[in-house]
């Protein structure tokens, strides 16, 4: 359990704090945080540290530091998750969580904390459940009824009074974030899909939803019990690893017959997340070749090929190509898209926009180097980063077959289903530039 919680600005000055247990003198916390975290040598900084028998658990979010302190052998994982989820809850109330928004809404933030944490124990964290118990007006919410938040078995949805919507609809989007790390020679070092099903429920009453996914889904939990890999390949199943569900999903039911049935939380929430490792072919192949003519110029040529099927199209596609610092007079040639030099990132940003599958695009950049340079030629070439979004496409092949809504009053709700694949962290390493001496 936490003894106290702080939200600090970038310099370590507290914006708000809440003492839960009164067992820690709060006077020096901020100063200790500054000394042992902010001003600590970069290599020695750890997100968890101990000063005077007090444990500090820190989480950075934008320009804020969230800090939980506690005594004894506290469960730091719980503390860290509480900090992470605190940001999520704040987000639903103040849109962005930043120094400014916390200062503007400090009374609301304190009130939320009061409901969410009691005596250092997390209580109710569900944003929709908190609505009835919080009175401070934020910029988004008005009109609350004084009701204790639900605590029962369906703690994520209020039942009394029932939620009501004029029009009953539920949005379900399958979003896959693609993480790749590709070596300069094109071999895949690590790859994973991190997918999730995001719901936005606007349904009245206490509806019961059933979600059906492709029959071919093999959940990894079951493959642990000894599925034959050969038959798996023959059926071309989609092998999802490590499926996590929102607490509303009946895990026991899922465990017995693999149906995802749940009473949804109100509003937006993540129903399920999954992971798929060891992908086949990268979505993009990138080759880069760069030359550094010592003291005169730097040249780089990039080819990128889209490997997904032809009828899919990226909504956005851009590459961040690192270049040496202090370059000047950039000039670009591209077969498609536009390039921009971003001196603050030491990068060229190549924006390609909409690109179909199975296409190759090329780019050539030339930039001047200072004639006299104090630093040695850079042997380091940071990886190229690819950012993209492909609508109506999932890499894993996961597919929502049906989403049924049953409610005792018998209304018909409309389900909307959407798919999206986007870049998580898609990195392609590149060879260091060939150095050509003058």
């Amino acid at each position, binding site marked *: 359990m936490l003894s106290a919680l702080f939200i600090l600005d970038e310099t370590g000055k507290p914006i708000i704090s809440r003492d839960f247990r009164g067992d820690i003198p709060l006077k020096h916390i901020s100063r200790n945080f500054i000394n042992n975290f902010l001003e600590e040598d970069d290599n020695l900084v750890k997100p968890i540290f*101990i000063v005077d028998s007090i444990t500090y658990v820190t989480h950075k979010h934008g320009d804020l530091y969230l800090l939980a302190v506690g005594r004894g052998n506290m469960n*730091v994982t719980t503390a860290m998750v509480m900090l992470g989820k605190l940001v999520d809850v704040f987000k639903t109330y103040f849109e962005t969580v930043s120094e400014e928004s916390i200062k503007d809404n400090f009374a609301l933030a304190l009130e939320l904390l009061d409901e969410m944490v009691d005596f250092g124990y997390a209580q109710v964290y569900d944003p929709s459940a908190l609505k009835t118990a919080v009175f401070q007006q934020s910029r988004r919410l008005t009109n609350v009824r004084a009701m204790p938040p639900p605590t029962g078995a369906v703690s994520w949805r209020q039942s009394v009074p029932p939620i009501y919507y004029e029009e009953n609809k539920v949005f379900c989007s399958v979003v896959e974030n693609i993480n790749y790390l590709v070596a300069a020679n094109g071999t895949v070092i690590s790859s994973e899909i991190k997918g999730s099903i995001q719901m936005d429920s606007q349904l009245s009453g206490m509806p019961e939803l059933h979600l059906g996914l492709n029959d071919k889904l093999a959940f990894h939990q079951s493959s642990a019990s000894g599925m034959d890999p050969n038959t798996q390949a023959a059926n071309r199943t989609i092998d999802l690893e490590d499926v996590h569900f929102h607490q509303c999903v009946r895990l026991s039911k899922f465990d017995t017959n693999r149906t995802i049935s749940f009473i949804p939380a109100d509003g937006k929430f993540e129903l399920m997340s999954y992971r798929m490792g060891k992908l086949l072919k990268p979505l993009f192949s990138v080759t880069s070749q760069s030359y550094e003519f010592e003291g005169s110029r730097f040249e780089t040529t990039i080819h990128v090929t889209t490997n997904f099927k032809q009828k899919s199209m990226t909504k956005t596609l851009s590459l961040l190509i690192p270049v040496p610092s202090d370059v000047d007079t950039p000039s670009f040639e591209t077969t498609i898209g536009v390039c921009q030099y971003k001196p603050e990132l030491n990068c060229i940003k190549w924006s390609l926009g909409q690109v179909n599958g199975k296409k190759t695009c090329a780019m050539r950049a030339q930039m001047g180097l200072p004639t006299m340079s104090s630093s040695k030629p850079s042997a380091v070439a940071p990886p190229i980063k690819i950012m993209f979004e492909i609508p109506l496409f999932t890499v894993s092949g996961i597919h929502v077959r049906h989403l049924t809504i049953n409610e005792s009053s018998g209304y018909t709700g409309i389900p909307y289903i959407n798919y999206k694949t986007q870049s998580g962290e898609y990195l392609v390493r590149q060879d260091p530039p060939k150095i050509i001496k003058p």
Partner: protein
Amino acid sequence: MSYFNTTKKGEIQELREGIGSTNLRTKKDSMKRVIGAMMAGTDVSSLLASVLVNMQTTDLELKKLIYLYLVNYSKSEPELAVHAVNSFLKDANDTNPLVRALALRTMASIRIEQIAEYMCEPLHRCLNDKDPYVQKTAVLCVAKMYDINPQLVEDEKFLDTLHTLLSNGNPLVVTNSVATLAEIQTAHPETTIFQITPDILQKMSAALSQASEWGQITILDALAAWYTPQSPKEAETLAERVSIHLSHNNSSVVLSSTKVIIKLSEYITDLNLVDKLMKKLTQPLVSLLSSFPEMRYIALRNLNLIVQRLPSLLVSEISVFFCKYNDPIYVKMEKLEIIMLLVNEQNVPQVLNELKEYATEVDIDFVRKAVSAIGRCAILLPGAAGLCVDTLVHLIETSQVNFVIQEAIIVIKDVFRRYPNKYESIIGKLFSKIEELDEPEARASMIWILGEYADRIEGADNILETYFLENFADEPHIVQMAILTASVKIFLAIPSSQPLVQSVLKIATKKTDNPDLRDRGFIYWRLLSVNKDMAKAILNTPKPPISTHKDLVPKDVLAELIPYLGTLSSVVHKVPDSAAPTGQAPKQTSIPSGDFAFQQEELVPASQTQSYPPPTSHNFDAQANDEELIDFGAFGLSAYNTPAPASSGIDLDFLTGMMGGTPAAPPKIDYNFDALPQLALHEGVCVFGQFGQLNRKTTFFLRFKNNSATPITRTDFRFNTNSFALKPQSADLGPFPIQPGQQRDVAISCDFDQSQLKVTGPDVQVGIQCDLGMIMFAARAKILSLTQYNLAADQSKPKASSVKNRNATHSIQNASNFNEFVQRVSSYGFVETNRMVKDGLTAVQLFNEIPALNALLVVELILKDNQAQCVSRTEPEYLAQMLNEELTHILV
């Protein structure tokens, strides 16, 4: 409007007026500004009286602000605060459950003893409130009250109410009750406030499936801390139940479930099930790494422990630990640690490619660690050493960064130590970089190589003189020592370099004020002047091989840490000392070079500390010390060929028993090892075995399968005292190492040793001590393998008749093979002492003895009316049951 600017003069007065205003809007605004000032650190305690006046308000927004203020400032003026009690008591009776809970919660948070007393009455009522929200708030108030006045809680019997609430229908009420009871139990380990009885277990496990994510953590943590399964079945059921929660997206739920499952698995006897449970852990643990960076750090520290405990779990997932370019440095360092724990002969090429990539990054500490990791791979994995050395040489040749080269040279020295005379072809490449070395450690390493290979390096004496001797006086101590030793070695290899060694010895003994250096200089000098051959023998003594241990946390500490996964302990890798709150020294170790230090009062006094090998990067330092000792003159070490633990210096025990050199490969044994039953599974090591007979001698057949990630370099095989006075003849399963994935089949013949005799039962407790710790298991001994084969029939007869006690008789199916039965029993050395054939009845008495146990065995086979029977009798009696069982086996 800003609520934070309150430093103007007269502000407090202005606020006071605002709070006293009759307009609700103004009141609220002023109150918010008061809270704002409070948050900004301004002292607004002087407003307490004005704030108290407004407590009776019906506006909930204002009420909450006032309560918030009270929690903060009541302590400064307790007398005034007591005036608030009446309002609290009134609110605690409000019709709105939100108000009731709020009043109670605030009242308990004020932490003044007088107020605690007033609280008893409303607390009793609220614990039984009809609204669960009020109940769950009230439950935590008990914890708050216990913190202020434990006696009061006991007098009012609140804890009994909490126990009743464990069966409440609302999961949050149940989990808060568990949290409260667990907290009180933790703070007062001497009490028995919270004991997980079967009844409570059932309630907790029912609540587990309904509880919120936080409630699940509370229950799982309580199970991990205090629950001990009563039977394997119970452990199985619970583990299955908990494993569902591994798919939760809350990292803390995953870690807490993991620790419960690992703990329970120790009580489960069905090894297949254990295996299945452990497999279920892999993916959830991997996905912990997809959280935000600070969470990843916690996850990695925990995974480090889990990997050490269960090495096979994540070995196939090594690529998830590869560093990303933008990982924070603390994450990269931890990932590197885990990569080094998981590296093996199969994945080493992949790992080396990664490490090479890291060596081009910018962060100096990380790059150094990566380079030194390449060297560690070479030392750990003899099969991959060549590849590692190639990688290091590649780095030395291509890297433009000075510290990469220096670090590479430091680790290459260690590689040379591990594999003497194997990679000296690369020495030339090292020396091409000699001018770039400016760090003491790198220079000392280079000098060590120079001295060690003086006979093979052309002009070693010139190199030493040119590059290192010039500034001898200004060199750091470590370099001076290296130069001194190297110059003597060079002289022994190249006698013409006598002037060099003389000048070095002269400076070392005359012109230095460092006593270590001077003493060593004198010893070398005398050694050289008395007997050059002896000097040679001493200096060129084979050095103890560098350690291949990669375990960082000792096994016993590790075992204690597992139930604390997710907590602070798991991050700092230290066992908490909550077990000793009364000031006794904790029984556990402290980590000498940890990044964190617990508060001084929690530190163990040095005398009571048993320290263990410091983590990785320090290992080489320790080895360097070993090496200095050896160079200095560890006499007669030539036969020493077992690895010494890195930090313990030289253990003299080895001289007594281990001089024999590497044992020869065991001869092929004629025995079907595949049929052996599995006896134990420990850290990935699988042991199969049973007693049997080989060449008429009692033998323990053993298959030792190393599925862990660590090569086994030593074993010690023992029996506990047993009913048969058995003692194994040989104690090790060599030749070593037994690489991961390898198995070893051995037949260990056994002797009788009276000192081993202790009547315990039919099982022999066997212990195998190896690199991975102690593996314990029990093997059923076979009486019929202990028997004699050279008995004389006439002497046996009186002995046979002296056995009086009669025990079990069993009938034998298939009586027509009666003679064959007699044959079978005789094949175990039994002699026929009596035979009677009369009226269709045939009776044969067979006898054998086990002199070491003073045991006499009599078997009578009787055939009557086509019904065969077998009667066995033994002296002493405790063998009867066993003999009977074995006979059943051979006769059916």
